[in-house]
């Protein structure tokens, strides 16, 4: 059973977003890190990049493969988690905390309602 915090919203592509005002913090779910296993490298977006919901925003490399990470929302990148450059393994150990990937200034708050709540995501991954 993976951890699925109640207060987050989820994309079907296994990213989470935490919304505070018009700032969204994005990461990947516990289920996703478990599926990827052994994360060795993280490619983050550039601060200032404008990203549309559903577009590739980052890449997480595990031993086996490189996986695209999609932005769950539209906005401009305001901050990235540079700790992950030196410690990519945080994605496996703390996917909802120390391994947040990037923050966005959200430009389309309305689209967030299309994301899943914890129960919806739990149903999607069959838990």
């Amino acid at each position, binding site marked *: 059973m993976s951890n699925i915090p109640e207060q987050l919203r989820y994309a079907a592509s296994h990213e989470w977003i935490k919304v505070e005002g018009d700032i969204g913090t994005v990461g990947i779910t516990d289920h996703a890190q478990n599926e990827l*296993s*052994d994360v*060795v*490298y993280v*490619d983050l977006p550039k601060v200032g990049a404008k990203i549309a919901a559903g577009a590739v925003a980052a*890449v997480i*490399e*595990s*031993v*086996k*493969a*490189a996986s695209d990470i999609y932005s769950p929302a539209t906005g401009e990148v305001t901050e990235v988690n540079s700790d992950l*450059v030196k410690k990519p393994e945080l994605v496996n150990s703390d996917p909802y905390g120390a391994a947040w990937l990037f923050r966005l200034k959200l430009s389309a708050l309305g689209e967030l309602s299309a994301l899943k709540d914890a129960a919806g995501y739990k149903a999607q991954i069959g838990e």
Partner: protein
Amino acid sequence: MSDLATLQKTALFAAHQKLGARLVEFGGWLMPVQYSGIVEEHKAVREAAGVFDISHMGEFFVGDSGALAFLNGLLTNDAGKLAVGQGQYTLMLNEQGGAIDDLILYRLHDTEFLLVVNAAKMEEDRAWIKKNLPAGISFFDKSDTTSAVALQGPKALEIARAFLGAGWPEPKRNEITSYSWNCQPILAARTGYTGEDGVELFFPNEIAENFFLALLEAGRPLGLKPCGLGARDTLRLEACLPLNGNDLSGKRTPLEAGLGFFVSLTKEAVFPGKDVLLKQKSEGVKEKLVAFRVKEKGPPPRPHYPLFVGTEQVGEATSGAPSPTLGYGIGLAYVRADCAEPGTGLELEVRGGRVPVEVVKKPFYKRPN
């Protein structure tokens, strides 16, 4: 991914499920990619031992008095050098000198041979052999009834001895011996695909699950872990053992792949592609399969990433992964012959950016002793 229902399963499938394996499609088979984790399994093989299900691989038996001559006219290595009970790495080529498959050929008896071939190439191999098979030579494909595991690592032989008992005739490097387990015939070959010492064990499907689980049990006190295809790939890559479909193909010759040691151009027999290789040998190859590493802490190489010198593309990666043993990204690539010397600096294109890499001597990892 193909429809799961159409994929083939080995006789160890239920055992993999019991052991909590994560399963993936590989060459038309549903196989374990990992149990506890790729890095953990990789380290188990380097430091103690791991066991892999290799039942998806093909086992072809070729026999009768003309078998040796037939195989010498089919495969690149000199089968005449094999004494009874010995095996050799060899390749089967198309008329253009490209690799159909790489395989191990064992001489079981004077006129009986075993070919262990790649799962994904089994159909193609069988068709090619049958097309070339003269009358009077017998060919049996026992892949469907044969299971196999690879027991690999510094503790592998100790585990095999403990499991099979004092009467087991232990094969030396590249040798194969027969024995029995629970009244069923087994073969043990001192070969592998990890860069470690170990044995590959072949046995009938009927005893597969019991054999596998009992072996795991016997090896557990010595650190034996079940290992999946994920670790198998990183282990073989560190050892620079080529993977057919990635590093070998019908469009690449063994000379380009750096496998000239396993090609006898001096033997009398004429195998498909021999003329092409003779010409290539005298003219020199234009591209070579090289090993390269990422120089700084950068993203790992992956198959198909292009390699550059300045603005000019000089090659393409065929395999790549982060090396669990070395801690940096490693890969194999075909590059222009003038860029193939160890020490040559190249740039790997990763998602539009450039990462400095260096051609290095093969292999990345060689076991101590």
